[in-house]
């Protein structure tokens, strides 16, 4: 019988080494029954996109606490498109001011999760919104 396991990549773009949140989420997704690929800190958008294609993930979760999300998040979306990965869902999290939300949605991010978000709610969002690709 075909299995349907969600594959997630958790990545930290740019010069931000604060990965506690990313690790907590990786663990939480594992416990939700997802396969989680964690790339570690200090990744370029190019590295993240290339890895996402090689790993054939359904969704890339970006974490950024340094304030560079307006540059880095859209850059990952763009790199994925260039590599034929436009069917991969991209979401973001971290310290992101409310006034940046619309800008990031317009750039192609599908959801943003900020401090205070409940882990269960995040998992629910993934289950409902990460679309099955053919």
């Amino acid at each position, binding site marked *: *019988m075909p299995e349907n396991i969600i594959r997630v990549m958790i990545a930290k773009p740019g010069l931000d080494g604060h990965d506690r949140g990313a690790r907590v989420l990786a663990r939480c997704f594992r416990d939700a*029954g997802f*396969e989680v690929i*964690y790339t570690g800190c200090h990744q370029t958008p190019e590295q993240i996109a290339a890895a996402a294609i*090689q790993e*054939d993930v359904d969704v890339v979760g970006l974490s950024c606490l340094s304030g560079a999300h307006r540059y880095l998040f859209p850059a990952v979306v763009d790199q994925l498109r260039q590599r034929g990965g436009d069917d991969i869902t991209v979401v973001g999290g971290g310290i992101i001011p409310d006034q940046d939300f619309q800008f990031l949605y317009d750039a192609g991010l599908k959801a943003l999760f900020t401090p205070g978000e409940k882990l269960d709610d995040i998992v629910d969002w993934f289950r409902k919104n990460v679309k099955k690709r053919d």
Partner: protein
Amino acid sequence: MTDKVKKIQSGDVRTASRLIRHLEDNVHEARSTMKDIFPLTGHAHVVGLTGSPGAGKSTLVDALIEAFRKMGKTVGVIAVDPTSPFTGGAILGDRIRMQRHAEDPGVFVRSVATRGALGGLSRAVGDAIHIMDVMGKDIVLVETVGTGQQEVDIMHYAHTVLVVLIPGMGDDIQAIKAGILEIANIFVINKAEREGSSKLRKELITMLNMAPDSAFPAGWRPPILKCENAFQPATFSQSVMDLAQTIHEHYEHLVKNNLIGSWSNRKAATEFNEAIRCAILDPILNSLMQNGELDAMIRKLVNKETDPYTLAEEIAGRFLKMG
């Protein structure tokens, strides 16, 4: 030949990784693509790395990628990590050590979860090796899960098996145990700057001295290489360069002594076993599961109303027409 196979032959990562995913997910059409892939295989040198958790396998793989790239070879990596037996989820973290190669078009790294397979690999590994082979990768490195003593499946898939050990893991008796130590074509003592590495080396030599000649096909006695101090890049890369050279020599040894043939027999038998299981056992279990019969049978077993042997015979009688 389908478009998909042509794309894979031209090295298209997107198509290849998608196909590996479909095989992992047990999508039926993926099997038929493999029928076209299989005849095209046979180019790659498959190298397995196994050893206990924390022995440094991923770091070694990362350094070996660099070494083989310097030798002008393209590299595929299949990194296996365990699936949680409780949730079915997995954290695949081997890639962290290899991310510097992410953008190199000559390198393709794919993480896979065991998804319940025993033996240190996953069911999709054999297929993933074929796919990377047909993509034209010269070397395919397969990193097993952190293993204990009995996860030896890698020997059926890899031409060359590296067993990665670190000093201070146990007393001498470990060296006479069967299992993982027997499958090594090359021993690597990693983190060799640590105390106990000379002792470990001596123990391995003693173990090899006691082995019968038949344990060394055409006289290949597994060499013991030391890799020390991954944090001193110059010396570490040099020892990994030597390791890459030894891996290459092992392959040449297999070719020169016509040992590839007996290796291929063993590999074909393993693959055939696996394919039969996919073609026969899975559909039977699926049908029993779908109509709820499986649950009923398990209840009967728990209540000791019947025994597993009788039940299995009954199912074989129902589904299989022998002869």
